[in-house]
């Protein structure tokens, strides 16, 4: 497989020089302000300093979150970050064609993912490794997409998480349809088995027509659907200002359903707000839009070079808001965890990453027949003939011909 470097970056010296403008000081300040502050309407239950803020509205949704539960959330975030970093490194070593880092978005993904019940369904975009993890998908199962051996093949119905989607925003309509189906089947209501759907997309995606149509459909059909927008401030090189004049959660106001902005780096905030939103949906008051205000700490993907369009100052500001660090501080300060616990989690993360690494290096290439398999559920004679012809042609090489 050719390295993606080759196509998004010219050979050294060969391609166009990096002549992108450096931002002006005013732009830097404006950028910092715009991306670093969530605004007064930001829901936050755990501050960057690890302080737990009470909330009469959302605390009831954290009733069951005791010290152990909080330690588990911490552990979840450490594990997925570690697996994310390992995958990123493996891409650099040529083991993956590309990697899409979630660094910085652990709280948004673990918090919202852990809010789901087994019967709920999640529709991810392509960065939701943390969500997939909370749905019980083995991290290893994600690698095929990025090693380019498959396009998503886990047990979608079993885990309650749909395949990754790369075309920006178009999974939102699929999620709306799925949630309509939950309602049509009578799965919305007061009993414990009531269901809901959550759909993930980014700040950039909000501009797509399909996301709008998803808002229209879900609202008109009262679908039990939580729109979960991870506003990580950037759509590749474009800041959120290129997509909207207003904070994105306010988009919901035009459709007549609630929109709320939560600190996307606050795992408790994300857990509580998403639980609330899912509960609303399960009871028939959907849809709900959540904007998780967070930050993409790494490049867009391993082929991206963020130094061309944003300054490290911004990154530095966001480092102080790290989603994991604040939980660690809180756990330590409240005595809910000792150093031993943190060490154990780190060790576990190392094992987790090592296993992932080992698995990845041993991943086999798919056989050529895979090209032709499952194009259709019912067979197509035309395609069958193409397969036979190609395999016979390949066989010709095996029987002594060279290739």
């Amino acid at each position, binding site marked *: 497989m050719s390295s993606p470097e080759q196509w998004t970056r010219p050979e050294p010296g060969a391609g166009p020089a990096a002549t992108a403008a450096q931002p002006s000081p005013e732009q830097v300040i404006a950028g910092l302000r715009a991306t670093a502050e969530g605004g007064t309407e930001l829901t936050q239950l755990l501050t960057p300093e690890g302080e737990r803020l009470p909330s009469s509205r959302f605390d009831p949704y954290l009733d069951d979150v005791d010290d152990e539960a909080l330690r588990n959330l911490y552990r979840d975030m450490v594990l997925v970050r570690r697996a994310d970093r390992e995958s990123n490194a493996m891409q650099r070593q040529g083991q993956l064609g590309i990697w899409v880092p979630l660094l910085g978005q652990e709280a948004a993904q673990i918090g919202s993912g852990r809010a789901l019940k087994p019967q709920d369904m999640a529709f991810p975009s392509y960065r939701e490794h943390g969500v997939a993890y909370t749905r019980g998908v083995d991290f290893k199962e994600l690698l095929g997409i990025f090693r380019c051996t498959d*396009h998503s*093949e886990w047990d979608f119905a079993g885990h309650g998480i749909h395949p990754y989607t790369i075309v920006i925003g178009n999974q939102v*309509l699929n999620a709306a349809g799925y949630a309509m189906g939950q309602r049509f089947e009578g799965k919305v209501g007061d009993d414990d088995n009531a269901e809901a759907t959550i759909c993930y997309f980014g700040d950039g995606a909000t501009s797509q027509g399909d996301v709008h149509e998803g808002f229209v459909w879900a609202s008109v059909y009262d679908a039990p659907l939580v729109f979960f927008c991870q506003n990580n401030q950037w759509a590749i090189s474009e800041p959120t200002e290129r997509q909207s004049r207003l904070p994105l959660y306010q988009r919901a106001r035009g459709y007549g359903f609630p929109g709320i902005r939560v600190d996307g780096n606050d795992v408790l905030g994300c857990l509580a707000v998403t639980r609330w939103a899912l509960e609303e949906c399960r009871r028939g008051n959907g849809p709900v839009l959540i904007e998780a205000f967070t930050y993409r700490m790494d490049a867009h993907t391993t082929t991206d070079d963020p130094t061309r369009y944003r300054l490290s100052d911004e990154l530095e500001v966001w480092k102080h808001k790290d989603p994991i660090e604040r939980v660690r501080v809180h756990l330590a300060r409240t005595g809910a965890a000792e150093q031993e616990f943190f060490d154990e989690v780190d060790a576990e993360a190392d094992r987790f990453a090592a296993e992932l690494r080992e698995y990845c290096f041993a991943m086999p290439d798919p056989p050529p027949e895979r090209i032709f398999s499952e194009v259709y*559920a*019912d067979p197509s004679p035309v395609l069958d003939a193409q397969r036979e012809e190609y395999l016979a042609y390949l066989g010709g090489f095996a029987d002594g011909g060279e290739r």
Partner: protein
Amino acid sequence: MAAPVQSPVRTETEIQKLTIGKALNLGLRAAMEADDKVLMMGEDIGRLGGVFRITDGLQKDFGEHRVLDTPLAESGIIGTAVGLAVRGFRPVCEIQFEGFIFPGFDQIVSQLAKLHYRTQGRITVPVVIRVPFGGGIGAVEHHSESPESLFAHVPGLKVVSCSNPVDAYWMIQQAISCDDPVLFFEPKKLYHSGALKQPVDTTSTPDPLFASRSLRSGTAATLVTYGPSVKVCLDAATAAAEEGTELEVIDLRSLSPLDLGPVFESVRRTGRLVAVSEAQSESSVTAEIAARVQQECFYSLEAPVQRVTGFDTPYPPAKLEEHFLPDLDRVLHAVDNALAW
């Protein structure tokens, strides 16, 4: 593999003379009766029964949750249908006129066509998209086009077209019970044609969905076509027969996968082929037919495969459509060319 279509148990007369429109209506009804996961979705298909009345009465009898008057957006219709299919439903979408399918093109190409392949069969998306297509109705822009070749080019989709009431009745049911996404092109100008009325035996066993069918045998040349042009070709064959030229006529029925076996077989006998379609010719289904026939019947062809199609222009103002659409004269002219080669 999909369950075979069962003839619905009906108490009323089994054999009625139906138009294509009414046959589709009854076919949809039978599919809804047979499987309560079958849903209808589209603009104005409920109380109005669709602008062509093909879904007439269905909302009344099956309710608003099985016959959905959707918001006005085609990407939304198809995109939510995909989601409903993932949930286990079998949605049947109506696109009001073929010219309005394009806002839904991404959902068709990027989701509908690929989900099964992407997931290596873990997910099936049995969605049918019904598309009234073709010209000859004296309509304004975007209401008379033939975009089927675009879908035939996209792997993962199946594309069919009916040309008579019996096929209309059965093919729509077979499309709905097929586990693959099917683009179902309906020859709108023939919907309510009394002349095409046929007795439809709802207890008989239908031909397979993806098979072409010879409608008339002949020796001088072969005509291959589908949808609204089938009637044109049959009329041309009748006219030619009066002058002693026997033309074979093959109704493709399926445009993807193409079932060209009967065409090859026929061309090997007649040596001449004319492919007819209202669609523009460039990079189209008729081009595919010519490409494959010249490959498979190279030594049998006594003349190049001729194509009679819409011109490579946008659909013209309807006052000019009689020129744009293949008609009996243009078909016979092409036959003459082939015979004179």
